[in-house]
């Protein structure tokens, strides 16, 4: 029951978080920007529209929005916010779960026969494979070391310089995983620079609604995960940190430019090094 409430709450608030970040970013860059409720209106619009698919697309393309949406929901249900189902919040399982989403969208992108989608699939899989070790190391480095791989161990975390290192790694990885500048740009209209948007380029209408929902739920889940790393429990503290993180991401998006494609691996490697350093320090007995 609690799990369902948590799931629905995260899913319902995800468009709000997305809208708020978008509005904040517009303010930072001196534009009036859309209302923070715009994402909800977008859903209403997309839901009414018919879906258009490329000719000859297989059943995989038609299933992919559902799988991506299900992956995001599972991620939301796995967050240790008090309502997660016991075996779900497992760090290693989570990494594999995210891989399911990447795999299905990548395969579907190649199914559309469009060179743009293929390019996006290639880039998305490339960066996903580099994100995986960094994310695993960041979460494990933050989690109580060697005491199992349950996410709930994040809640009993002691805070200090080493966990800050792990968080730094997590933040970089989060930018990549949620398609943010400096790695990806959600608001680009130029196919050659798209990664996540390129993957879903051929989707439209209510199919696209599912895919956007998946991306937004994943975004909020990562923000909450970051908030858990920072605060370690308490609903108010969590919400506060999530807002701070969302603002931080918006600042990063305003201040930085998108880096060149082949500089992204260096960025991700930096995240990995932060996370691994925190684990190594912990292994050699440094306090949290």
């Amino acid at each position, binding site marked *: 029951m609690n799990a369902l409430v948590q799931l629905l709450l995260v899913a319902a608030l995800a468009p709000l978080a997305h809208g708020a970040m978008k509005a904040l970013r517009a303010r930072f860059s001196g534009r009036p920007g859309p209302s923070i409720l715009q994402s909800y209106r977008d859903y209403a619009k997309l839901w009414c529209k018919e879906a258009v698919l490329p000719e000859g697309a297989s059943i995989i393309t038609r299933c992919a929005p559902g799988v991506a949406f299900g992956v995001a929901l599972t991620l939301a249900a796995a967050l240790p916010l008090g309502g997660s189902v016991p075996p779900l919040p497992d760090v290693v399982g989570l990494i594999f779960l995210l891989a399911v989403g990447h795999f299905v969208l990548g395969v579907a992108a190649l199914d559309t026969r469009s060179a743009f989608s293929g390019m996006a699939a290639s880039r998305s899989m490339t960066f996903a494979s*580099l994100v995986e070790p960094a994310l695993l190391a960041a979460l*494990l480095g933050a989690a109580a070391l060697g005491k199992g791989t349950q996410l709930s161990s994040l809640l009993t975390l002691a805070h200090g310089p080493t966990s800050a290192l792990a968080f730094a790694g997590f933040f970089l990885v989060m930018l990549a995983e949620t398609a943010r500048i400096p790695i990806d740009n959600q608001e680009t209209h130029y196919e050659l620079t798209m990664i996540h948007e390129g993957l879903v380029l051929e989707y439209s209408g209510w199919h696209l609604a599912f895919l956007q929902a998946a991306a937004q739920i994943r975004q909020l889940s990562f923000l909450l995960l970051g908030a858990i790393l920072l605060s370690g429990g308490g609903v108010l503290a969590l919400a506060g940190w999530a807002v701070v993180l969302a603002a931080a991401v918006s600042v990063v998006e305003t201040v930085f430019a998108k880096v060149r494609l082949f500089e992204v691996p260096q960025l991700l490697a930096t995240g990995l090094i932060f996370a691994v350093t925190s684990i190594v320090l912990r292994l050699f007995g440094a306090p949290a």
Partner: protein
Amino acid sequence: MRLRLLGAGSTLTLALLAAICAFVAATRGSVELGSVPASVPALQLDFALTPLAAPFLALLAMLGSAVGVWGLRRDRPIDAMLIAAFVAAMLVLLIASSVASFFLSWETMSLVSAFLVAAYHKRRAVRRATWVYLVAAQAGALCILATMLVLATHAGGWSFPAIATAAATLPPSARDAAFILAMLGFGSKAGLLPLHFWLPRAHPVAPPSASAMLSGAMLKVALYALTLVTFNLAAPAPTSWGVALMVVGTLSAIGGVLYALVDHDLKRLLAYHSVENVGIIAIGIGLALVARSTGDLALAALALTAAIFHAINHGLFKGLLFLGSGVVADTEGTVDLERLGGLWSHLVWTGPLFLIGCVAIVGLPPFNGFASEWMTFQSLIASWHAFVPAFALVSLAAVLGLSLTGGLAAACFVKVFGVAFLGHPRRAVTRPIATERFDAATLALMALAVLCTLFGIVPMLVVVPLARVVASTIGVAPPIAAALPVLPIALATLPIAAAIGVLAIERYRRVRTVPTWTCGSPVTPSAQYTATAFSKSLRTIFAFVLLPERRRIVEAGASSWFPKRIVYRTESRDIIDETARRFAALMLQFARRSRALQSGSLRLYVAYSLGAVIVAIALANR
């Protein structure tokens, strides 16, 4: 025809026999099967069932029956017979219990598989690949013989129980010599880096059923032998062996998947993935060795369970993928990813089954690869806490390597499946292609896919009996995480349910199909992304290992702006092959230089002799 039936029938019978042996060994423990006495004790052939061999016998049974069924329809008669002999050799090897019976069946296995690799011997490339395979196999066999001799001479007996009893008193130098020789011999057979070089050569030329058996079963038999030596015949192993195995395993996993990524021959790509998966299994075995030597028996049991579970799983999904690539080769006449495409529309059975194989090998829930990789991760992460920091660093590196491997494998199989099975065909299709019909070969694929799914959804089906087997080898039952039985279902339920939901909505909501948007230009098959293009970014990032080589030839037409033809080729080179080639070139150069010493002038030779005499006298007077 009758010969093919005979071959396939014997394979199936042998598989049944293997299943019975596996069952007895797992339930009864060690059972003596008898022995063939010989006038010389060294030649005595002993046979026994041991618990450690049981999971490998079970794998042989499952894979053997699938390949047998496949053989009913697709194999050439001679290949079907050879496959039966190959299965027989592996079966005997798994129940061998003395040096002579082990080594004889090992050599039989190597030779029969060499004949399978040489199946299409009329082509030069095939004969070359067979030659490389035979050299690797025989050099490895010599190392194995040496291992056995070191162990047996110390024990003074030739049966495995006698050797195992005497192992406790082995002097350290002999123990290390045995391990290094075993690593060379079994490691080259298993395909561990850097001795994997025969795998990517032998697999593309072997028939699909032979590839399935080679990769699915024979590599595992080699790992069984390595486990047997390190956990039994030369036990207790010092910590350094386990660390060495973990390092080699991690390197093999990453190296294997990287070379797979840039390879576009489907069968060679799968061969490189075998290197990757053998690496993952080796990490588990290595961790078990380290844990056992440091006295943490529960962790050792867990790691060994994960390793053997992954060995079984890899046998199943790799068999599925190799047999699937056989169907592709039969219908398309090629397994070159650059020329395939759109198979999904007519390979209505193989397509979905191949997809299951891809998802399983990537390790996504709820398929079997996930369960065993998750267990490997769990045991590695648990070891951070248990080990002293120096070992924990090795296992941290293994965790990172393993997760990088997982991500790269996902990229690779998105490429394989997306390029070969989806999209438009990349070559000219002149006549409509017949839709695939269900036959014995499809049945074989289906059986393997069902097993991959079943062991993924209900991992305890394998893990529970496996835990008993491991407990009898190590002495302690592995602590199986409470999450394991439910985690695959928990992770996969919502994605599957949501996918079904979306398909259900489609029945009520309109979905219109239009031509793919290609910026207004006509939609052509060649506009699709290719396998080379797909792996481009990873090829660039990992250029330091992959050594990509690019050639671009532009044939100028009327002006340089309108070329008549552009040829673009890109190739990656295996760093091991490249090192060997450089070394050979260096030696040749050295030899050429030293030719100057042999000028043919008599006076110079007299001067050499004089010089030698002077040096000899000088040394003698010192």
